[in-house]
């Protein structure tokens, strides 16, 4: 008799979602689905607005990664204006983007996934949370808070506030960086370096050793990877070229101009989720052949080199077992490497002489009726594509969000974990948490990806084929 298990909602992720497992007559997992249950509709209600307003409107898609939307939206605006923004403005935008990488990755590793990694996947759910983490390992919990604070402060010092700063605009940025603020950031950097080095040590010495099986099972499958690399092929988060690679390391697309992204990315929809299913266009959607992954793992796999000394050393360790790492569990490691890289780049950029230059905004009118803006959000590549009329009013808006691009991969990860750990019908809480961790690896931001918001309780139900409730679990 086939059955259906529902985990609703999934916790410690950003947004609302549920997981369903479909068991066959023998109690084996036949299919698993990750459903995103929220919808927001930004693409529609932005029509008729001015593209000048879009950075601030689309930043409201998310409170965790508003900066990514600011970047992509302002860059789409730059292309509509047809301007090359001042050098200092580009440096400042990059600084803010790295600040965001630091704060968002710190949240994901230390606080969203930290309870699983430090306390254990199947540990007492009453303790497996931030409070339990603080009780067991206060230094680790504090490190997460301090590192996240550093990232948030970089954003705040640049943009006036850490959430939804109205600072990044088409043509550049609104305010230059003062010498005082630059020095404040530089003063805070050493502590951030200490924290990330402690976290890397903990990950390599303890987390991996404790999670051998999880490392082999969670999201370990061949897939394509898509992301930006710099024009020279280095690790990149703000601009550059789109690269596509498979998990054997074969480069399918070495460097495509981001405005041509539609040549490699197409979107499919499924009736059971609000989250679209982007896929690699040349391989097609059939049988999920075009499944690809974006985000830290993809970026760290795709680049030829990191470009900063400490991150470069870590990148070599990351690749010690092969050029491409396909284990989804390595998202955690990739995230830590990116934090280290971002801190090094912040330091390098703050020490550049022109970072405090006062000329930070290019002025122009509408010169092009179509614009594409791309940036690497913490979770992966983010595209904003706008069509405007001569006055600058938006005729159409298309947003392709990182989490959406990981949708197929998240579904496959859930299925893989379910097949490895679900045996028979009896549910237990630890199992549910493993499935959720499979999702947390991707650090999904569902508010963004459905241009939708939320927090997740957790209900798991096991239904018979006639809808009869066979078993159920609820998290408070």
């Amino acid at each position, binding site marked *: 008799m086939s059955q259906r298990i529902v985990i609703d909602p999934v916790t410690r992720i950003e947004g609302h979602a549920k997981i369903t497992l479909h068991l066959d007559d023998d109690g084996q997992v036949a299919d698993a689905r990750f459903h995103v249950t929220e919808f927001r509709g930004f693409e529609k209600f932005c029509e008729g607005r*001015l593209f000048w*307003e879009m950075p*601030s409107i689309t930043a*409201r898609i998310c409170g965790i990664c508003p900066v990514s939307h600011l970047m992509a939206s302002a860059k789409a605006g730059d292309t509509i204006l047809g301007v090359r923004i001042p050098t200092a403005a580009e440096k400042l935008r990059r600084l803010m983007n790295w600040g965001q990488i630091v704060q968002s990755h710190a949240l994901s590793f230390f606080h969203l996934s930290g309870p699983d990694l430090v306390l254990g996947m199947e540990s007492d759910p009453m303790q497996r949370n931030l409070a339990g983490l603080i009780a067991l390992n206060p230094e680790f919990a504090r490190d997460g808070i301090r590192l996240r604070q550093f990232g948030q402060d970089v954003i705040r010092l640049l943009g006036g506030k850490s959430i939804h700063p*109205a600072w990044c605009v088409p043509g550049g940025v609104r305010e230059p960086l003062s010498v005082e603020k630059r020095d404040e950031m530089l003063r805070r950097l050493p502590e951030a370096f200490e924290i990330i080095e402690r976290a890397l040590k903990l990950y390599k010495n303890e987390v991996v050793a404790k999670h051998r099986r999880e490392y082999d099972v969670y999201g370990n499958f061949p897939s394509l990877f898509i992301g930006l690399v710099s024009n020279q092929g280095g690790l990149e988060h703000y601009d550059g070229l789109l690269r596509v690679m498979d998990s054997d390391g074969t480069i399918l697309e070495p460097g495509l101009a981001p405005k041509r992204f539609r040549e490699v990315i197409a979107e499919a929809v499924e009736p059971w989720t609000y989250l679209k299913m982007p896929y690699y266009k040349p391989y097609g959607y059939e049988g999920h052949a075009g499944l690809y992954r974006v985000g830290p793992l993809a970026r760290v796999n795709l680049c030829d080199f990191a470009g900063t000394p400490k991150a470069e050393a870590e990148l070599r360790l990351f690749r010690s077992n092969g050029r491409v790492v396909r284990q989804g569990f390595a998202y955690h490691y990739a995230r830590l490497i990116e934090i280290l890289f971002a801190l090094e780049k912040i330091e390098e950029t703050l020490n550049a002489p022109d970072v405090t230059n006062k000329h930070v905004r290019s002025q122009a009118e509408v010169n092009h009726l179509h614009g594409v803006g791309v940036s690497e959000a913490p979770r992966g590549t983010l595209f904003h594509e706008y069509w405007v009329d001569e*006055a600058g*009013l938006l005729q159409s808006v298309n947003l392709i969000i990182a989490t959406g691009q990981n949708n197929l991969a998240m579904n496959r990860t859930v299925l893989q974990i379910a097949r490895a750990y679900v045996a028979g019908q009896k549910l237990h809480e630890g199992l549910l948490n493993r499935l959720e961790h499979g999702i947390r690896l991707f650090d999904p931001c569902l508010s963004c990806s459905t241009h939708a918001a939320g927090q997740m309780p957790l209900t798991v139900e096991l239904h018979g084929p006639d809808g009869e409730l066979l078993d159920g679990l609820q998290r408070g």
Partner: protein
Amino acid sequence: METVVTLTLNGEMVSARADQTLLDVIREQKIDLPTLCHMQGLSERGGCRLCVVEVQGAPRPMAACVTPVTEGMVVRTHTPELEHQRRLVVELLLAERNHVCAVCVVNGHCDLQWAAAKLGVASVRYEYLHPDLTMDASHARFVLDHNRCILCTRCVRVCDEVEGAHTWDIAGRGIKTRVITDLSRPWGDSPSCTSCGKCVQVCPTGALFEKGATVAEMTKERDFVGWIIRGRTKREWTW
């Protein structure tokens, strides 16, 4: 010689010239009374109803901006009932169109936002209408966003009375009322508009703003109306 009248304002006896409005006298007495459609130097409209006051013997609250002072008048400006009515007016304005402060060009510099904050409007009890309204971005320098217009007609009056172009006017009735330029042709096609920008500066909200301005970036300069009027009437050019 000017005629002087005496009236009672919040229990105090005050003197005023007979040609003054109640609002003039109330402001002279440094009593804080919110307004939205009033603008020093322009004709009064009495439309926003925020300056309503209680006049003894009158059957209903009176808009101070369009009520002349009279001898022996007894006026109260801040009763609980009046405060309630002012809050109600602001709530209705907020519910009528799409005022989204967080992404507005005048966030932090908006008369409607200030009035709401001052009157303690913490929430709106009415259902938002969410009308489907357009923007007119056809002008080279300025943009009209109907979503944020409160129909105060300051733009209409400043264009007519100060600039002398009368580009702006009002079309439609009731909830379908809209400000229009030159018999409802796109602002950018208006032959009468001199692109002086006075309408943009006097607009109390983000309904009229400079093109290219982003969130919270637009501040408005209002003193110029008084300078122009004083120069024109008294030949005094002390800016």
